[in-house]
């Protein structure tokens, strides 16, 4: 059994313009000790997916489907049960570490807070645990840092504190939402190394949400490429990077600057034409179709199923339907049927 299993997750927001489908039936899995990347442009639904796993979506969001953590459906928990799950079984770190820490509380107070307030551990024992945790994430002078305020620390240090805070109660799953986007490149690499090291040491699974393919290549075991609320392609990191099959996925790969390639200064970086569709007025059929150079009449009509290419590698594109076996065909067809009827 997987540690995390998201099945047919749909998330819609009630807005003044009507219902906005942010995530339209995705399946994501993560095994214990695995680092799974969810990659896509902003607005593709990746952060919303992460927040739904945490149970932190705003009230106006409606979810359906299943989010199984060790077999328990998180969507079926009461708010109180969900609160108890946060921090103990799943934790999350965020994009802007400076803003994610409370400016008027010391680092020590923020680190020990869950231990003292929720687990009822004594102040001094909690402090010792906080020091050990800061040492684990390689913060030098850990004991002195406890009395520091977030504004006295650098961004990289703040993110280390965030990671220490997230892992202090040994969760099984860590969700990292763009954990390095706000940091300098050198600090980025350090944080990524730290995440990998912590995974190796503790066996915590990491669900990494990012738009940065470099981060994915650096860290992830498996990858889900999302576009407009759908998973377009999934596979292990070699399958996705060496052999991207979906036109969106290889568009993404081509638009990545390569450090190794000699840059003559004349060569323009590739970009995918067009923009992400408006989620309120989604085209019927494949959402990528308006930007796709290879689209045909079928693409505009019906959203294809995920097609299995090889073990673990699947793609949602008509190009491969018929040439490869449809992945989990029954369930996907059922969903498509409902969509066409609507």
């Amino acid at each position: 059994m997987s540690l995390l299993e998201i099945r047919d997750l749909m998330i819609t927001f009630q807005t003044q313009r009507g219902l906005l489908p942010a995530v339209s039936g995705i399946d994501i899995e993560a095994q214990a000790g695995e680092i799974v990347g969810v990659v896509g442009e902003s607005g593709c639904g990746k952060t919303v997916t992460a927040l739904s796993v945490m149970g932190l979506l705003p009230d106006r969001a409606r979810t359906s489907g299943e989010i199984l953590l060790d077999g328990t459906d998180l969507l079926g928990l009461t708010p109180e049960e969900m609160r108890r799950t946060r921090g103990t079984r799943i934790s999350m770190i965020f994009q802007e570490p400076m803003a994610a820490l409370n400016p008027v509380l010391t680092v020590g107070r923020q680190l020990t807070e869950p231990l003292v307030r929720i687990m009822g551990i004594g102040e001094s024992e909690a402090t010792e645990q906080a020091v050990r945790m800061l040492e684990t994430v390689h913060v030098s002078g850990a004991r002195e840092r406890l009395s520091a305020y977030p504004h006295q620390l650098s961004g990289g240090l703040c993110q280390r504190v965030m990671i220490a805070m997230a892992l202090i109660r040994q969760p099984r799953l860590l969700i990292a939402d763009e954990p390095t986007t706000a940091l300098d490149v050198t600090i980025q690499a350090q944080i990524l190394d730290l995440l990998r090291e912590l995974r190796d040491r503790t066996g915590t699974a990491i669900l990494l949400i990012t738009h940065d393919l470099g981060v994915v290549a650096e860290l992830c075991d498996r990858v889900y490429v999302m576009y407009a609320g759908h998973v377009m392609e999934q596979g292990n990191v070699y399958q996705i990077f060496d052999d991207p099959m979906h036109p969106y996925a290889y568009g993404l790969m081509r638009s990545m600057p390569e450090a190794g390639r000699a840059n003559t200064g004349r060569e323009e970086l590739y970009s995918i034409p067009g923009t992400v569709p408006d989620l309120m007025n989604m085209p019927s059929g494949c959402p990528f179709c308006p930007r796709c150079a290879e689209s045909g009449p079928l693409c505009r009509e019906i959203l294809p199923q995920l097609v299995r290419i090889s073990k673990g590698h699947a793609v949602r594109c008509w190009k491969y339907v018929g040439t490869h076996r449809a992945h989990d065909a029954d369930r996907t067809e059922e969903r498509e049927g409902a969509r066409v009827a609507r």
Partner: protein
Amino acid sequence: MIRYVLLKIFSTIPILIGVSALVFFLMNVVPGDPIAIMQRDFIDPDALERVRREMHLDDPPMVRYVRFLKGMAHGDLGYSYKMRRPVSGVIATAFPNTLKLATCAALVSWIIGIAAGVASAVKPGSFLDNALMGFSLTGISMPTFWAALVLQYIFGVLLGALPVAGFDSWKHLVLPVAVLGWGQSGIVARLTRSSLLDAMRRDYIRTARAKGLRERIVISAHALKNALLPVVTIMAIQISSLLSGSIVTESVFGIPGIGRLAIGAIHNRDMPLLQGTVLFGTFLVIAGNLIADMLYGTLDPRIRYVKD
């Protein structure tokens, strides 16, 4: 920090001089003669002239102002024309009454204001939120004298439950504190609400929730501590203006405090006393601002005064 405070205290001196000059010369322009008002009943021109000379009121204004400044430098605020007592003594007698009223009104307004603001912000748009904010807006918008009269009529005349004027027992405090506290709590409530709503949208609140903290702790330990920073500033300024005397409330309820002294001094053209009350108030407002400044620095670790 000490340097900063000393600097602030010395910078009040020119402000005090400026305010005193303004009051002094304005009172000279205003028609009315303190001696004539004093001797309203038996006007004997010779006697008037004699008193005027005795009190040095026949000197040109500039001479009198310089004499006043000299006295002030020695801590002497002069002699009240009307009360025939030193101004500092008159203020010292009246201040405890104002202090009692101001402290009670401030405490009431802070407790009610912050509680109402938090209750509103926790469920914005709810019935409770609308009711509390309506109550606050009413408190802010109602003219003090009108609110005082209405409360006096309801609780004093119709119900006969509370005295309408005087300052002898705690019962006499209830209505004036209610009038002052209502208006002031409205300001605190609205500010607390908007500040807390803003804090609740911040990233660190999401972090606190992600830690699995109870919502009550998320609000009290994480959001409120940030949200109260601007509120504390307003509270310090409020208490200093309350302490410098509420002219309308004290007049309507017949409370012998600083506010009533000031209005009496204006009626009687009692220059030294008016100067004294105005300068006293100015000093309190400056002190209140200074305390707000310092509190802010203590509460918000991001603000620290530059050391030397």
